[in-house]
């Protein structure tokens, strides 16, 4: 700390200054006791006959039961999607298609509070984030792609855009509704129909989305939602009636899907894991950078594929950055996801909590120094204290493996070249952050970092116009922007050259 900051007394907030609880009312959400599958425009009982509970991870309380879609159920959903694609959806004019998507965007805006509460209930994320990030971005995504539906021929010069057919989409549990929007909006704008599987632990916002489709009067079968675990996802990947697979999730599962599709000629896009470097230069605005570090790794409990999980600090500012960071960590409020003052919500599942716990133990065993601010954890639910590891070697598991939790590994560097080398020293390549006041350095670093998204003096920022996706083992294909249309189109050339 500087002398000035010491004089200003940056001691932790006095313990007597407790915030009064500010919970968002949960009665805006009405849940069924048990959900079927959304196929052909209506909820149907699963042929599998199986259901499983879905919970609130902050209370370990059951919210509802959802269906475990089996092979036959996936088949019915694919048939419904195929039928809708061939009889109706492809006859609707692109301008009308656009209007359905605009309607969906508007309804999401109108019902945003309801969705935000449900998202926090079922996923454990702070209501502040569901309300200010997930919902506005979901609506914006539909609004953006709506406008593309009748302008596709302007997007790719010299090519004839045609829909692919039925898209199978498998999404993760970290941003359930937002990932649904990233998948469904471009797919429908391009004229496809969809079979979507939400994540096993967070199916409820996708099931509520079915009600948005009813209100928007989307023709039946254009969007079908099948719930279930990985087995359901595998049935989607294997199904011969699906023309394109879009998957967001772990690199391990992504590789398995790529192997499964080998030789089938099906189109595939993969948005997989990351181990992003967040690089702080000595000329950065440090307080702003510290906020960026916190946002980079503790946003959504670190359940973010592009999380800034490796902090690279220039050696000359290592001490003040770490001191400021530790100070800031003490002010983070962990607890009830529905409380509007909560910064860190619940870990999404027991399974994820176990994985984080195991990797943190590995970090301590390998010799890294652990820091966790004093923090009371609620008695029930899945929680993990925001954690910083210093003295981390590049070879440690916590510097190599994606933890997908609120755990930061700190490394240092001296020169920009060393920062680039360390940042790129991973099989992943999804994102990176650069903090400096020098514009030319931002662009030079941006050129050298092998990652699909580079944030300068910001982090974890998203926009429907901005393409997102990875290099190397972080996957291929882009979501968002003009480039996000390409995976959902057949793009033959108008008149191919050279024979």
């Amino acid at each position: 700390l500087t002398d000035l900051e010491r004089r200003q007394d940056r001691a932790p907030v006095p313990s007597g200054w407790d915030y009064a609880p500010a919970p968002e009312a949960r009665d805006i959400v009405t849940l069924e006791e048990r959900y079927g599958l959304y196929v052909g425009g209506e909820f149907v009982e699963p042929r599998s006959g199986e259901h499983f509970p879905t919970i609130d991870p902050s209370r370990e309380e059951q919210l509802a039961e959802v269906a475990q879609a089996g092979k036959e159920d996936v088949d019915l959903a694919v048939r419904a999607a195929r039928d809708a694609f061939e009889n109706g959806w492809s006859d609707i004019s692109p301008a009308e298609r656009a209007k359905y998507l605009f309607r969906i965007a508007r309804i999401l805006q109108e019902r945003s509070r309801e969705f935000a509460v449900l998202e926090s209930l079922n996923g454990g994320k702070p209501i502040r984030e569901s309300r200010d990030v997930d919902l506005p971005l979901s609506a914006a995504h539909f609004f953006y792609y709506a406008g593309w539906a009748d302008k596709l021929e302007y997007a790719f010069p010299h090519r004839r855009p045609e829909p692919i057919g039925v898209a199978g989409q498998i999404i993760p549990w970290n941003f359930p509704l937002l990932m649904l929007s990233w998948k469904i909006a471009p797919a429908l704008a391009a004229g496809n129909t969809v079979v979507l599987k939400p994540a096993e632990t967070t199916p409820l916002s996708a099931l509520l989305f079915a009600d948005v489709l009813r209100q928007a009067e989307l023709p039946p079968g254009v969007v079908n939602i099948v719930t279930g675990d990985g087995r359901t996802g595998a049935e989607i990947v294997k199904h011969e009636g699906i023309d394109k697979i879009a998957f967001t999730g772990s690199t391990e599962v992504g590789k398995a899907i790529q192997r499964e599709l080998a030789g089938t000629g099906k189109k595939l896009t993969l948005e997989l894991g990351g181990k992003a470097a967040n690089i702080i230069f000595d000329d950065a605005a440090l307080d702003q950078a510290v906020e960026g570090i916190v946002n980079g790794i503790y946003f959504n409990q670190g359940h973010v594929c592009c999380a800034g999980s490796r902090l690279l600090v220039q050696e000359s500012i290592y001490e003040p950055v770490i001191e400021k960071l530790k100070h800031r960590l003490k002010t983070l409020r962990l607890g009830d996801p529905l409380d509007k003052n909560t910064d860190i919500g619940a870990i999404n599942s027991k399974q994820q909590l176990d994985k984080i716990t195991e990797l943190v133990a590995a970090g301590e065993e390998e010799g890294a120094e652990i820091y966790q601010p004093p923090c009371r954890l609620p008695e029930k639910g899945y929680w993990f204290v925001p954690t910083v590891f210093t003295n981390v070697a590049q070879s440690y598991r916590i510097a190599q493996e994606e933890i997908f939790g609120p755990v930061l590994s700190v490394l240092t560097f001296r020169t920009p070249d060393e920062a680039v080398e360390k940042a790129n020293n991973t099989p992943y390549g999804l994102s990176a952050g650069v903090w400096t006041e020098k514009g030319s350095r931002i662009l030079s670093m941006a050129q050298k970092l092998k990652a699909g998204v580079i944030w300068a003096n910001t982090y974890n920022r998203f926009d429907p116009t901005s393409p997102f996706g990875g290099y190397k083992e972080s996957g291929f294909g882009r979501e968002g922007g003009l480039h996000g249309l390409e995976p959902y189109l057949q793009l033959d050339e108008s008149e191919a050259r050279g024979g």
Partner: protein
Amino acid sequence: MTRLPVKKTYKLFVGGEFPRSESGRTYEAQGQNVARASRKDLRDAVRAARGAVGKWSGMTAYNRGQVLYRIAEMMEARAAEFAELSSGRAEVEDAIDRWVWYAGWADKYAQVLGSSNPVAAPYFNFTVPEPTGVVGVLAPEAPPLGGIVARLAPVIVGGNTAVVLASESAPLASIELAEAIATADMPGGVVNILTGHRSELSPWLAGHMDVNALDVGGADGDLPELERLAAENVKRVVHGRADRQSPYEIANFLELKTVWHPIGV
């Protein structure tokens, strides 16, 4: 007395040099002994290609375009030899013209394939295409010259480096091409060409962890198996066709990078 012609030894092209296979093996094709590359040669070629990525992708687009254009110049000078090793004059002229066509794309594709994105926040947000890195190319078996040129040109114009498995039955045009490339001011290692038994080499190329993308257009064997091997490090798998000439063929081997640059005073 008629003069006895001096015949050429056909060797591999790796790192800008023309080594024999480290295995000492050859096979006979088109009436010549041709080097039969080994797995070790393949690994050496990938290493050479990786080593050349920085220099080649770091050159200006204008420079890369001129190098590609110079390949066309070098081929024009050897057109008679190329005609003998391929289906004839027409194939050679097509191949030369294709280099010229792609040379012209070097400083243009970024303008066609990139974008600036109007985000709802104070950032200048733009998307630029960048090379994916090292690309493995299974050149089509035929045509002997047109095939390899059609698949190689879009790979390297984008700043990638390449390890090419040449046509097995008609490899001589590929080695002749290597000689044209070697005299075109192309940095060593950008293009590496291996001759040999494709079935022996292609699985190792497909499974190599330091290869970023794989063009399986010329694969004749077990395509599903090659694609499965490619999944090991999430390779971009491209089903290239020799009859395609398009900037979107360049795009197949490019990554898209999006940058959020702050706006403020």
